[in-house]
């Protein structure tokens, strides 16, 4: 039967080419949308490396622009004030590079025998306690590190994997704007956002009272939102400014990801709409073809085909066409991982090819099923006289 179907399709190749093209294009669109979605979902599914629940962020109003002595005093007083509040468990001061704020500091060096690019985040020694960072090797910063002759750094695992794979780098030195010593490794610190890739990242220690413009607070569980007003008042009194902004980090995480989610949902919706259109198109074409071929169906029944044979033939026809379209589409799409056109992992594209194939096959089978079953119900006596 398959040989017979192939002959039938080959002899109608001109009209079938359009259907193949339609399925091919659908596959290509589906492949790219799914690749984009899988890539982003892959990032979202990776841990951020820090906690966001019960973490509040305070954006200080112009403290760093004050006279340096006044700024230091203000920050020292602020830390004392904040720690005196029983709702606050820990306090960490940072520069403007804080989670979900779209600010980043990128630096690099070619002095280690290869080109190195990394994100740099100045932090104080309390960041680990506030954000719940996970040290996988070595240790976290302590106060002595501020006065260390060789500036200590903590790097993330991605930094190690990218630049020093399969090596233990704790207590090793390298050059990055001067000699640096790695004292510890954290698993992740994806502070830019959930949809951001896991870049090599370096944390450097800085005294909390210098050039700091933001504060991260580890709050006690279930701290009421009303506390924000009391906190705001206390900060305003200490910094002598009312322009400070307090944000719940979890809310900011959701807000930060919203734009990316909207894009993903929009793409999936457009893709779904495209699939629906393709499905309706296929359904219409099949329905039309079957009606046009009523006499042939009647003839086949007269010659001994039963209902199952008729259904099988029409489903087989569309599945063979779909198979051809999918094979052509796979030939083109598989070049992306094979030729390593992008830096994205190959598994992402293989997964997209697999899912695109599955979705197209399911869609086509559903569309073919109803018209094919209806074709089997055509009575030969009537259809043979319609021609």
């Amino acid at each position, binding site marked *: *039967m398959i*040989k*017979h179907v192939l*002959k*039938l399709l080959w*002899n*109608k190749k001109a009209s079938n080419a359009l259907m193949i093209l339609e399925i091919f294009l659908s596959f290509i669109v589906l492949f790219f949308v799914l690749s984009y979605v899988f890539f982003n979902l892959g990032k979202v599914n990776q841990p951020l490396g820090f906690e966001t629940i019960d973490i509040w962020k305070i954006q200080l109003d112009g403290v760093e622009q004050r006279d340096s002595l006044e700024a230091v005093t203000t920050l020292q007083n602020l830390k004392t004030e904040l720690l005196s509040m029983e709702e606050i468990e820990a306090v960490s001061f940072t520069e403007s590079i804080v989670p979900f704020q779209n600010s980043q500091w990128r630096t690099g060096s070619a002095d280690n025998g290869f080109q190195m690019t990394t994100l740099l985040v100045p932090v104080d020694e309390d960041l680990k306690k506030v954000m719940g960072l996970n040290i996988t090797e070595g240790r976290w910063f302590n106060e002595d590190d501020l006065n260390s002759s060789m500036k200590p750094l903590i790097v993330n695992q991605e930094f190690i994997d990218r630049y020093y794979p399969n090596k233990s780098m704790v207590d090793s030195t390298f050059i990055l704007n001067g000699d640096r010593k790695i004292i510890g490794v954290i698993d992740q610190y994806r502070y830019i956002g959930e949809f951001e890739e896991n870049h090599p990242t370096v944390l450097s220690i800085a005294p909390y009272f210098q050039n700091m413009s933001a504060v991260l607070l580890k709050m006690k569980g279930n701290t009421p939102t009303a506390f924000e007003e009391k906190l705001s008042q206390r900060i305003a009194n200490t910094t002598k400014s009312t322009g400070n902004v307090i944000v719940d980090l979890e809310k900011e995480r959701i807000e930060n990801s919203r734009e990316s989610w909207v894009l993903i949902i929009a793409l999936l919706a457009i893709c779904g709409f495209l699939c629906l259109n393709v499905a309706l198109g296929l359904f219409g074409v099949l329905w039309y073809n079957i009606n046009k071929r009523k*006499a*042939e169906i*009647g*003839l*086949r*029944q*007269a*010659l*001994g*085909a*039963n*209902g199952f*044979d008729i259904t099988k033939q029409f489903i087989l026809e569309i599945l063979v066409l779909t198979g051809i379209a999918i094979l052509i589409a796979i030939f083109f799409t598989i070049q992306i991982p094979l030729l390593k056109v992008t830096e994205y992992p190959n598994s992402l594209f293989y997964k997209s090819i697999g899912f695109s194939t599955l979705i197209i096959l399911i869609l086509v089978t559903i569309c073919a099923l109803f018209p094919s079953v209806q074709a089997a119900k055509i*009575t*030969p*006596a009537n259809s*043979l*006289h319609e*021609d």
Partner: protein
Amino acid sequence: MIKLKNIKKVYRTKTIETTALNDIDLHVPKGEFLSIMGPSGCGKSTLLNIIGLLDAPSDGNILVAGKSIKNYASKETSRFRNEKLGFIFQSFHLIPDLSVLDNVELPLLYRSISSKERRTLAEEALASVGLANRKSHFPSQLSGGQKQRVAIARAIVGNPEIILADEPTGNLDSVMGDEIMGILTKLNKEEGTTIVMVTHDERMAKKTDRLIRLYDGSQVA
């Protein structure tokens, strides 16, 4: 070979009831060449469809080789048509997208035989109607007479016991018609194939063993 007992066929719509066949009793012995004549709309094709199990009677019974086929399931009916019957139609009903050889192979497609054997049998059938050299052609490249010969090859390729021909010469000129009639007669005489043929052509009907006439759904002669 074929026995029809009190066959009735009534077409019903919401407002009208039309009797297409009324109490038809017919016996076609094995090896007979029977022709059915009558004016248009008298029920000739309906009768042929009922004999060919393409349509079910509203009442009555059909016996083939002594067996009632009234209670045949759909699959059994299909198998019966495939193994015992061959059909020839006025408008040939060749599939335009298949070559002559593939068209002839069609009935064998629904039997469990290899493609090689199918091809051999189809080539033999084509040779028997004198079209061995046209096997790669498509129906659109053939004359009316050649198309009907392909249809005959398709009808005989499965070696059926009965051939049902619905106005096989209706679309052909007299020379072509005679040629087709010659092939059918040869099949009947030499192979012993039972043939039931519906025709409008008195001249063709006279070449058969027996003629029955229908008028308004009833057998009148």
